[in-house]
């Protein structure tokens, strides 16, 4: 657990608050025999007032709706007629009814997760290690690589629609210009290439994000271990492999969790680029959920998918946390 101290951005591998607590001389209220501030800090009205806005928002917009989603997933309901309770039938339907295309969408989501893990994260790690070593202009590079991250996914999607445009897009124009005209394709309209074509912009957009997480992580590591390894004659590669990367484990864990859960709930870019088409080739769970909910008014089936996405995200977040166990936990 790295603790971020205010202001200067350096982190300490301990909780500064805990340290404060242990040696702070605690003034005591002599008559009651308890820390004098406790009375102020136990003010129930104040606690209630401070918690109220956040609780209203969180319970009203997150907790109650989640429970309702779970309840709706057990109904056969189109929003107009009386709902019929059908138990887990919707969960069976999403996996057995071929026309919904849900198993394929889950497979695509896993494929996204795999590509993120084995292409996106290694690229990000390589960039982060290179930049953190103190390349000339490292601040500029980090700033540049981060630019796509802050741009709206909708803009990125529309831009890549143009890039992939079969007649005028730069991908095909480039292929024609270098004499590879026979490889031009309708990238997003061809069910063989659509999935890969929607993955590339996602990879392109978020490499900078993972890179920055790792870069910040490396920069917050104490340098003395690396120096010691260097004095012992370790090569750059050895320092990265045996010192920097093992120390980076907590950050890598976060990156893996983000890459996996992000792939499971991806929506915006696919909605803009293909909306799951052609013929379900680039479908992901969230696009199917939206279609079932708002195009077909299939509230039960759509909610079952929603609950399934939630379970999947929590499942993987927990599994990854267990796999990447760090000394601190």
């Amino acid at each position, binding site marked *: 657990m790295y603790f971020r101290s205010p202001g200067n951005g350096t982190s300490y591998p301990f909780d500064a608050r805990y340290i404060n607590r242990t040696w702070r001389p605690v003034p005591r209220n002599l008559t009651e025999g308890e820390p004098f501030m406790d009375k102020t800090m136990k003010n129930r009205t104040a606690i209630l007032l401070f918690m109220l806005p956040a609780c209203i928002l969180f319970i009203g917009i997150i907790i109650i709706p989640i429970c309702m989603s779970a309840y709706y997933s057990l109904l056969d309901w189109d929003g107009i007629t009386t709902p019929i309770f059908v138990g887990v039938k919707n969960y069976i339907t999403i996996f057995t009814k071929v026309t919904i295309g849900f198993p394929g969408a889950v497979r695509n989501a896993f494929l996204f997760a795999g590509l993120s893990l084995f292409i996106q994260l290694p690229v990000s790690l390589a960039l982060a290690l290179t930049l953190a070593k103190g390349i000339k202009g490292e601040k500029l590079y980090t700033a540049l690589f981060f630019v796509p991250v802050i741009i709206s996914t*909708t803009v990125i999607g529309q831009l890549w629609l143009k890039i992939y445009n079969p007649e005028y897009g730069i991908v095909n124009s480039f292929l024609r210009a270098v004499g590879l005209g026979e490889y031009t394709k309708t990238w997003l309209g061809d069910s063989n290439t659509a999935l890969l074509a929607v993955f590339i912009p996602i990879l392109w957009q978020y490499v900078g994000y993972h890179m920055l997480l790792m870069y910040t992580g490396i920069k917050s590591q104490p340098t003395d271990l690396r120096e010691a390894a260097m004095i012992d004659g370790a090569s750059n590669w050895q320092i990265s492999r045996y010192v920097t990367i093992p120390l980076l484990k907590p950050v890598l864990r976060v990156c893996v969790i983000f890459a996996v859960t992000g792939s499971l709930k991806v929506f915006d870019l696919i909605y803009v680029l293909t909306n799951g088409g052609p013929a379900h080739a680039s479908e992901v769970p969230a696009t199917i959920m939206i279609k079932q909910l708002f195009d077909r008014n299939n509230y039960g089936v759509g909610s079952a998918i929603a609950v399934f996405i939630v379970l999947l995200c929590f499942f993987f977040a927990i599994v990854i946390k267990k796999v990447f166990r760090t000394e601190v936990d």
Partner: protein
Amino acid sequence: MSELSISGTIKPTKKYSVGNIIITILLLIWSALQLFPLYWMLTFSLKENSEIFGANIIGLPHNWLFSNYTTALQSGNMFRYLLNSVIVTVASIIITVVAATAATYALTRMVWHGRKIANAIFMLGITLPINAVILPIFLGLSKIHLTDSYWALIIPYSAFALSMSIMIASSFMEGIPLEIEEAACLDGCSVYGIFWHVILPMMKPALSTLSIFIFLQSWNELMYAVIFISNSDYRTVTVGIQNLSGSFTTDWGPIGAALVIATFPVLIIYAFFSSKIQESLVAGAVKG
């Protein structure tokens, strides 16, 4: 590597070694890959179709066509969409910052039963995919006739940013030494006074980090904006662009202009606060 060269035992890395040159070249190639699509977007927003479609695909425009921007702003209605996005984003920032800082104070400083559990529940919200609650929220908002209004987006956006905001705020608040609050308390300051006069002023750097985080999330959100808003008077920029690309399918210039217009506020803020922005998106994650 110069900071590592201690007492001459380490041979300083040569400035122009082969390795360094290769690394620099690779970094430059990667920078080009990251920036070229954006450069292309900027140039085609200033071109007319004949240039985009063949005469001048990747060069700077021969004929700087700023009329694309007026088309996007006026007939494309981008101005209205921008305004809507600003309203929704600013309101979400205010609501979330108030709710999150107040809750964080109660969660990190005050003493009460259930504090740990409450904190854990809020933290679950970070992993929760927000698209899983879209239907109940939609039905709830329809019931009270709030779809097709700013509130239809402000309320969910505030709620969704809450967990992460509390996490960022508490990692900051934990770093504020307790002694200051104790001194204020000794001087007879009430808990509200401590929060308002002591904690909030010290939280200023964290508040801007929070605001930027909420800004990026609300400004760029698409799914809720598409589903909850059908009246064009309340459309935000992201939905506006989607509509615009539907109505200008053959005319690329105005679409490019709309994309640039939607991106511009974000880039301006990034230019001034790049380290703050980076910090806001990393803050929660690095803490784990």
